[in-house]
């Protein structure tokens, strides 16, 4: 008797959530562009403030770019579940017959495509202000590519925990920052190392492993957090 209902494909449901969120981002481009502007501004103002000395810029470039990327991602996380919560579509997701982690993963994919990927794509332009050579820029993009995946997924846990609270940006940051420290440290260090001519494979492997770990576990944690905070 119980088999009577049709379960839609989990993958299909996941991609349709991602598609819907991408469509929403397309219709409200401000939400996507704000964090991107923030990243570009922080990273271009810094060289103006510390002065044009070549040595200083090359030394601080990776750290500043990575910090700016981390903060820009945090900025974009606030709105991940808030609009769904306010218009009632989160409730609809929770009573859907599709497993919640799949829907959450769909949302995270869309979030990364609209926040992480654009950061990766504009980073070579921003890196010019730090006089970064092309070989180093390639590694910077690679670390950002792996790192922003982890940040999007980790961030979804924090966003889910704070969804019922009003304006919980500070709390969200406090929850997420400790978990994202390894990403920041390995990301920035790997870029610094390649700038000084060292081997960087270890750092990249770590970032990749961390991303795989977080992608496989975070959707379940986020789903559980949503069930708790939507009571």
């Amino acid at each position, binding site marked *: 008797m119980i088999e009577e209902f049709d379960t839609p494909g989990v993958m299909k449901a996941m991609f349709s959530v991602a598609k819907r969120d991408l469509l*929403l981002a397309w219709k409200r481009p401000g939400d996507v562009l704000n964090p991107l502007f923030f990243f570009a501004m922080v990273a271009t103002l810094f060289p103006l403030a510390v002065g044009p000395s070549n040595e200083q810029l090359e030394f601080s470039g990776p750290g500043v770019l990575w910090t700016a990327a981390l903060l820009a991602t945090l900025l974009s996380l606030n709105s991940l579940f808030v609009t769904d919560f306010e218009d009632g579509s989160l409730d609809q997701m929770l*009573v859907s017959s599709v497993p919640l982690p799949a829907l959450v993963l769909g949302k995270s994919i869309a979030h990364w495509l609209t926040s992480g990927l654009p950061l990766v794509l504009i980073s070579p332009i921003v890196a010019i202000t730090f006089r970064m050579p092309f070989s180093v820029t390639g590694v910077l993009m690679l670390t950002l590519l792996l790192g922003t995946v982890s940040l999007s997924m980790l961030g979804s846990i924090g966003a889910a925990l704070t969804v019922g609270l009003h304006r919980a940006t500070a709390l969200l940051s406090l929850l997420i920052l400790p978990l994202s420290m390894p990403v920041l440290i390995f990301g920035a260090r790997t870029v610094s190392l390649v700038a000084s001519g060292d081997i960087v494979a270890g750092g990249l492997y770590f970032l990749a492993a961390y991303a795989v770990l977080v992608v496989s576990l975070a959707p379940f944690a986020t789903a559980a957090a949503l069930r708790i905070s939507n009571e």
Partner: protein
Amino acid sequence: MTIKLTANDLTLLRGERCLFKSLSFALSPGELLILEGQNGSGKTSLMRALAGLLEFETGDVKWDGVLVRKNRQAFHGSLVWMAHRVGLKADLTLVENLSFEASLRAQSSAELDDVMTRLGISRLRRLPIRSLSAGQQRRVALARMVLAKAQLWLMDEPFTNLDRDGRTLVMKLVSEHLGRGGMCIMAAHQDVEVDATVHKVVLQ
């Protein structure tokens, strides 16, 4: 054996307040359950808890003889919930919203046009939900409900914001649903005239 919803000895607390104690009811195919009570008496909370969004303090709900807690996915597959907040994306158009819902439910979109015509919203199909009136948004939520083809309808004050035709239409849709062997739980302030067995639960 027919599919049945039974609730046994339910108690629900919200914070320090007890909304209701030892509430029991049973619902068979073709039957309607109306929840009555003043504002704030816990009708919406009861519905949220039945849908699995809140935990009951005591008691259990069984769907088809199986505890809902144990088999949430099967239960969610056979229910559709029309909440007070309609759960539509304001920036997307009517059709975009409905086809998103369709993709979560593995239903055919062939009937989409019929249902939209029936609810009088087919000329709004290209408009974003944001630009529709509250009553029109309710009609879209009703369309989603009809398209879902679920056996159990949970409706939280479905008559809100609807004009007289709309209210008659809701009753007609519910009657047809019950006639097909569906079940419906509805929180309502007004009398519902349907040709079916009606149970009532009054919350204090």
